[in-house]
């Protein structure tokens, strides 16, 4: 059950300020072609399905950007324009604009006192969320961290539900009990929403395990649900990350580990915290492909995502994808964000993923600017509606306090009168003592 090792490579080390055009090329790994032994990998391929064949173009670790593009152009029947259709680009654009507008509105609402606590915004990283989640089916699972609003929106949770949850209203996706950092949706298969970093990775691994279990033990042959776990660069120094990489590769679980490397863990620079900052290299150490991709370019992320999700669906095992990205705001709304160099922020602001996609769309004449504007307007209306809905929603009543602590409320035990505590009428009022 060894996992297949595809050749992974990175073309440039991250994350030096570069001009937009020469950003690191994403790595397109083609399992059939790119299976030459990777420089850092000590594994032999134990998979019979992959023949260690043609490796002509992958001998060296670093391949020039131009080579890769040429190769792709040769492989694809037409130009890069066909990377995306009109409908797809509309979807992507809409998704990213929704994420951005929502997060901006969150900031506004926070400063107006409508939501409290720790709120972590996703501005600047939309390409990663959209790039991956747009390709998932409804039954696929997404597991996130505390920076989860946009993952929820991309997965399909209505903006109304997310906004009410942030306002702490009972109509929120978690009935107001979770908050910003705990977004869950059973309907859309969003597994959270975790406050401690690294906590969600094992949960995602479990969901992938359940998918494999269903296929192999319960014999649900069509079950090919994949799980995508999002987490940051700081998490990649955490034990749970490594433990899960090991288990996922060991059992070839259908999971994709997506590292949103925005270089900063609150105030700790990734370079100061990590012995080897190239996170994608840690994949091959465990026997899975490690890919590095420009996380500010949604099309590149999407390409990588397609490959990774395809791999997982076919049962070939996990993939580690490192997306080099950046958050435009501070770590949270309470973070003054004084530590980051303004020049760095300015540089990445020029690589705004929404701007990039817009530019791409306009340049390739896929959609007219007017349509894009219409989409933006529509999104604004959706957001406004969400805020109104959340404002108008009721706060949770007292009776909700003790609900949902146990799935089976008999877990509250037997009271002195011999009845189960949950049968106590005061229990539903939330005034019973437990």
């Amino acid at each position, binding site marked *: 059950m060894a996992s297949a090792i595809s050749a992974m490579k990175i073309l440039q080390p991250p994350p030096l300020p570069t001009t937009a055009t020469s950003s690191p090329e994403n790595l397109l790994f083609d399992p059939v072609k790119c299976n030459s032994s990777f420089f850092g990998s000590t594994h032999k391929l134990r998979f019979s399905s992959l023949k260690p064949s043609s490796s002509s173009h992958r001998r060296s670790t670093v391949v020039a950007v131009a080579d890769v593009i040429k190769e792709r152009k040769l492989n694809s029947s037409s130009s890069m324009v066909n990377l995306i259709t009109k409908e797809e680009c509309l979807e992507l654009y809409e998704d990213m604009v929704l994420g951005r507008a929502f997060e901006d509105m969150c900031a506004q609402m926070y400063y107006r006192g409508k939501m409290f606590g720790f709120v972590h915004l996703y501005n600047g990283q939309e390409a990663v969320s959209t790039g991956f989640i747009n390709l998932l089916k409804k039954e696929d*699972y997404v*597991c996130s961290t505390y920076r989860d609003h946009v993952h929820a929106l991309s997965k399909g949770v209505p903006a109304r539900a997310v906004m009410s949850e942030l306002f702490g209203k009972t109509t*929120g*996706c*978690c*009935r*107001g*009990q*979770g908050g910003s950092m*705990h977004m*869950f949706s*059973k309907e859309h298969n969003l*597994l*959270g*929403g*975790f*406050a*401690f970093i690294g*906590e969600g*990775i*094992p*949960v*995602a*691994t*479990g*969901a*992938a*395990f*359940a*998918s*494999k*279990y*269903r296929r*192999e*033990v*319960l014999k649900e042959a069509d079950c090919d649900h994949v799980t995508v776990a999002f987490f940051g660069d700081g998490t990649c120094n955490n*034990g*749970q990350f490594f*433990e*899960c990489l*090991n*288990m996922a590769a*060991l059992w070839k679980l259908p999971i994709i580990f997506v590292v949103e490397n925005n270089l900063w863990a609150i105030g700790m620079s990734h370079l100061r915290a990590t012995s080897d900052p190239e996170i994608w290299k840690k994949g091959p150490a465990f026997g899975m492909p490690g890919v590095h991709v420009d996380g500010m370019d949604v099309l590149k992320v999407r390409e990588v995502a397609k490959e990774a999700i395809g791999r997982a669906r076919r049962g070939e095992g996990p993939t580690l994808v490192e997306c080099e990205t950046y958050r435009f705001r501070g770590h949270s709304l309470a973070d003054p964000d004084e530590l980051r160099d303004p020049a760095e922020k300015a540089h990445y602001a020029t690589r705004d993923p929404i701007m990039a996609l817009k530019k791409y769309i306009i340049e390739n004449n896929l959609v007219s600017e007017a349509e894009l504007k219409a989409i933006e307007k529509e999104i604004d209306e959706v957001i406004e509606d969400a805020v109104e809905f959340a404002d108008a929603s009721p706060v949770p009543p007292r009776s909700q306090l003790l*609900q*949902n*602590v*146990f*799935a*089976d409320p*008999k*877990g*509250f*035990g*037997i*009271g*002195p*009168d*011999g009845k189960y*505590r949950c049968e106590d009428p005061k229990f539903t009022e939330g005034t019973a003592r*437990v």
Partner: protein
Amino acid sequence: MLDVYFRNKLTELQDLSKLKVRKLKITNCENLDTVNEVPGCNSIVEEETNSTDSDEEIYSTDDDDDDDDDDDDDDDEGEEEEEESAKEGKTRALFGAIHPRNSVRCIRSKMAAIMQGIGAATALSSSSSSFDSKGFQLPSVKYFPERKATSLVVRSDGRLIPGSNLNARNVSGRLVTNAVAAKADTSATSTASKTGHELLLFEALREGLEEEMDRDPHVCVVGEDVGHYGGSYKVTKDLAPKYGDLRVLDTPIAENAFTGMAIGAAMTGLRPIVEGMNMGFLLLAYNQISNNCGMLHYTSGGQFTIPVVIRGPGGVGRQLGAEHSQRLESYFQSIPGIQMVACSTPYNAKGLMKAAIRSENPVILFEHVLLYNLKERIPDEEYVLSLEEAEMVRPGEHITILTYSRMRYHVMQAAKTLVNKGYDPEVIDIRSLKPFDLYTIGNSIKKTHRVLIVEECMRTGGIGASLTAAINENFNDYLDAPVMCLSSQDVPTPYAGTLEEWTVVQPAQIVTAVEQLCQ
């Protein structure tokens, strides 16, 4: 190792022998009556012994646990109490016959057998003896000619302990004052009918597990060495060949990650059972247990259920060292959203295991390293116990003793002494550590007005501490004396055998405490 073991054993036996315990031989019920009716039992029938060692002591008891819980599945085949008692599972851990003629030599050889894990039930038809550690002569009502099973209670550590027969209710009034009163009339016919089957506690756990895995294909086991190795305490033996490597999953040594994995799998539809090789290892999984296991149902607004069972052996064993002898009940008890239960007999082990698997809540099932080799006869029929209810081990009038897990056996041993001294303790195995069954406990307190809690948990912030608080809050009016709590010392369990013994509560301390409370 054997030598060390026997050295310790002998030391123990010798200690007890200082108390001038004598062997008893009771041949029939009539003797029993005579003996039993005398509180204090001054007129014990003394029997000559062929033993060459005058210091020999033999514990032999018949541990009749009467589960008079409401939760017991009463699959009574017969209407007779005997049948019921047999099915309700008298705990008779049998490790070999010990005749009164046995000398210590023979005991040693029996120990050897025990050490090799050979348990044999042989009939001791003619005699029995029971001793109290404090040298009180107890009438032992163990044997009746018809009884087939041995009356020996031997724990997995080889220590012979007197179990105690309880439940005077099932016997006619003459045996009320005798802790060791067998359900004399009841047990006689029970063994003859031979309902149910005998097995050891770890086998009972396995049986429960296997039945649930057969019943629901979503049930799977996750843990270290659960598959090919069969479990470090053999609870999952032979399950991997039967169900496959994916259903009985051998994990790498990554507790936090595989516990989280089990939680993720539970959220997405499976029902995993996480085995901690030792409960202490679950400290590494504390992040996942506290944050995810306990909380996710709540923070997701009820959308995801986590029907996971986390189980493993804990408690103070036989010189296992500090880190392997931890009692984590106290650490986990504050986590909202989880239930905790502790099993103590094969009967309730199987029942609780099944209940935990079927429950939609996350449940932590605490087993004890020293109890895995207890043998008992359990029903053939399927039964599931309630996770929230406590178990009445021995009804009484004078004092309520609340206990769980291994301490149950220390309490029962002390109970024998106490009965001899004329006390009538009511012993309740609380079983459900979180939440407490305040109904059973409350009824008992209302009857006896005195409470003693005996536990192996740490003194500080342990189960006993919480229970004391709960009792004081709810039943303060019914108490004639302050609640007394006997817990382990707040020390890391020492390796040395003598020190280790002093960290946990011993029967002698229990007797003293009861005497103190009942003044």
